[in-house]
């Protein structure tokens, strides 16, 4: 490969693209499959030399809001998150559609169809449509790189945030990426209209009309985008619309001979009606191939489905859920399956498990001994982190996982209903992400509940990123108003099991908010530090 070609994950291509396009700030909270964008920026010498902001944020909402602030100041900024992170940042995202952008603003969201590492497989293109902003959806790593340049330019041309949608497969797949000429960062320039970002009703109504007025232009941009291509085809019995990475799965099945059908490669939205209309006029039926939810298919069909014949995930040619792959698309194109072997009987799954020596194991054991084994199953609420694995055997320790922070709020709701004891298990990083306001709710009412903040001093599940809670947990809890006598800390090990159980028993007996903080570093980050220290020595 040439020197200006790099071998990059899709995530890394986004980071490198943003850097080369003159970004001044990355803002993110870790979340699979988006984490590597920030991690790449953090180790990039180019980013260091350019003093590009690349420190983790407390959560996706603070990340996006900070990025909007940098855009306000006239510089290019990006917020990155996984799909469910956009739910957390949704308030800022939808409203940013109205405020618009000053410096280029890209919101990069990595969806996870098939839920490889997620609670749902929501499709962020719905959010893009909801906010009425342009959406870019790369089909490969090269496009992911180039879309950062285009995205910032589109954002500045129309004074709008732009959504860059990835899926797991492109985020975590490596390919060669050819770089473009680097452009400098912007200087600070405040918006001409100093009230543009003030969404008071009177201004918001004006801004909303501005946003509505831009929709035709956004669509025109998509119709003329170099990322959207209409390929002629002689076999007009079927036309194919292939969105983002799905284009590759279609072409994989035609390879050298080329696709005989008219084919619309769709990588920029809103859906360009002129191109779709042409296909519908030309072809007997249209197959929509898209990874995630049937966003395009649903719009083409409409509620009554009385127009063109549209096939895809809703009609059953493609499965309604789960990630696409070449074989699934092959079947939808009407080809016979390629012969392959089958998995022999007796091949078993290896469910993800807590690491040997993990401090969460000691916490699960103590909580089971003092709550489940005494009062029965069903009293322990939790949420998202490595500790969610406590739901699986051999622990069977936790009863809920809804979203980041929902452990504390759900335990409070159950306590409000009269459930005693009610306990929440939350990690240190999840606590500062979304648990602090929940704890404040409980403190205000002195709810009779126990909050167990498992402090492994890192954001472990996503690979050990900095935790905003590091060294601050007790202060935060006391600051929120938890009685210091009921903030209990200990080092969870096999040896301290009895002490741990005793603490939980004492706090169950206390009628009010108790916080227990078992503190012991993640074995993975500890091992990594030891290795680095050894290499340094």
């Amino acid at each position, binding site marked *: 490969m040439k020197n200006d070609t790099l071998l990059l994950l899709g995530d890394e291509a986004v980071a490198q693209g943003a850097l080369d396009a003159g970004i001044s700030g990355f803002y993110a909270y870790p979340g699979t499959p988006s984490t590597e964008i920030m991690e790449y920026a953090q180790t990039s010498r180019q980013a260091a030399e350019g003093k590009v902001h690349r420190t983790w944020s407390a959560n996706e909402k603070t990340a996006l809001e900070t990025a909007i602030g940098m855009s306000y100041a006239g510089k290019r900024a990006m917020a990155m998150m996984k799909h469910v992170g956009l739910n957390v940042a949704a308030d800022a995202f939808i409203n940013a559609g109205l405020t618009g952008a000053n410096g280029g603003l890209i919101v990069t969201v990595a969806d996870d169809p098939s839920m490889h590492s997620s609670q749902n497989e929501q499709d962020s293109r719905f959010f893009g449509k909801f906010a009425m902003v342009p959406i870019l959806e790369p089909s490969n790593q090269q496009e992911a790189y180039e879309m950062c340049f285009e995205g910032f330019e589109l954002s500045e041309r129309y004074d709008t945030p732009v959504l860059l949608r990835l899926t797991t*497969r492109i985020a975590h797949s490596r390919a060669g990426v050819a770089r473009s000429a680097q452009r400098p960062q912007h200087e600070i320039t405040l918006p001409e209209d100093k009230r543009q970002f003030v969404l008071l009703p009177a201004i918001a109504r004006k801004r909303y009309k501005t946003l509505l007025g831009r929709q035709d232009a956004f669509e025109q941009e998509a119709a003329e985008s170099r990322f959207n291509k209409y390929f002629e085809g002689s076999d007009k019995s079927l036309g194919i619309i292939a969105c983002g990475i799905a284009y590759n799965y279609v072409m994989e099945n035609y390879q050298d001979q080329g696709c005989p059908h008219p084919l619309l490669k769709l990588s920029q939205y809103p859906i360009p009606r002129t191109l779709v209309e042409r296909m519908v006029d030309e072809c007997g039926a249209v197959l929509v191939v898209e990874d995630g939810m049937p966003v395009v298919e649903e719009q083409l069909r409409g509620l009554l489905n009385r127009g063109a014949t549209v096939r895809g995930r809703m009609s059953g040619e493609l499965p309604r859920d789960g990630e696409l792959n070449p074989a699934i698309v092959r079947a939808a194109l009407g080809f016979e399956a390629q012969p392959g072997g089958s998995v022999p009987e007796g091949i078993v799954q290896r469910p993800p498990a807590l690491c040997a020596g993990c401090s969460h194991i000691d916490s699960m054991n103590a909580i089971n001994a003092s709550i489940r084994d005494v009062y029965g199953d069903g009293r322990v609420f939790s949420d998202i982190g490595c500790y969610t694995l406590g739901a699986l055997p051999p622990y069977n320790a936790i009863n809920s996982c809804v979203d980041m922070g929902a452990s504390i709020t759900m335990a409070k709701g159950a306590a409000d209903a009269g459930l005693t004891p009610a306990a929440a298990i939350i990690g240190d990083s999840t606590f500062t992400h979304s648990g602090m306001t929940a704890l404040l709710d409980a403190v205000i009412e002195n709810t009779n509940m126990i909050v167990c903040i498992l402090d492994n001093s890192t954001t472990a599940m996503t690979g050990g990123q900095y935790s905003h809670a590091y060294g601050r947990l007790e202060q935060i809890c006391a600051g929120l108003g938890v009685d210091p006598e009921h903030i209990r800390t200990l080092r969870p090990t096999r040896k301290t099991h009895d002490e741990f159980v005793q603490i939980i028993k004492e706090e169950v007996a206390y009628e009010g908010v108790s916080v227990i903080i078992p503190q012991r570093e993640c074995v993975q980050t500890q091992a990594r530090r030891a290795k680095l220290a050894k290499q340094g020595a």
Partner: protein
Amino acid sequence: MRLDIILAGVGGQGILSIATVLGYAAVESGLQLKQAEVHGMSQRGGEVQSHLRISDKPIYSDLIPAGAADMILSVEPMESLRYLPFLSPEGWLVTNTTPFRNIDNYPELDRVLEEVKRVPNHVSIDADAIAKEHNNARGMNMVMVGAASVFISLEFEKLQDGIRYIFSRKGDDVVERNLATLQAGRAFAEQARTTAQR
């Protein structure tokens, strides 16, 4: 030229370093490459796989289609069988025979190895033992790369360069040991192929 390899193993066994060496050799040979990896939750002791695609033409899908893989290269025997639907009828199954038992219901090893033998083109190799013989207990991966080298059209010298590339930071001694381990894996597989062809 087109080469589709499924790399298989368990989280933490380091299949990504195999991908790095093969990928380095491919890129140095002026070939195109796509490599899909598994990150996140399943890395914690779960099954992990990587789809490595190498070609002299543009590569479309990041995933290898079912029935199209030229090789399954597995550092663990049961994991090698999990991906059989991807293996082309002419493809090779090259697997380490040392099991990684982090689950209670791991099947009987003899049965697993029997299933491996039912694949027409297969090489079973005790890569852990070979690595230890070469005083390189952690070099099991490079034994597997050496074994795979017999069946793929990448220049062996380029694979050696790949090893120099990833281990150079750790000193000449580590590089030399891994080169020897690579050679040992290759020698074993060459012999196994000759035996199979008789």
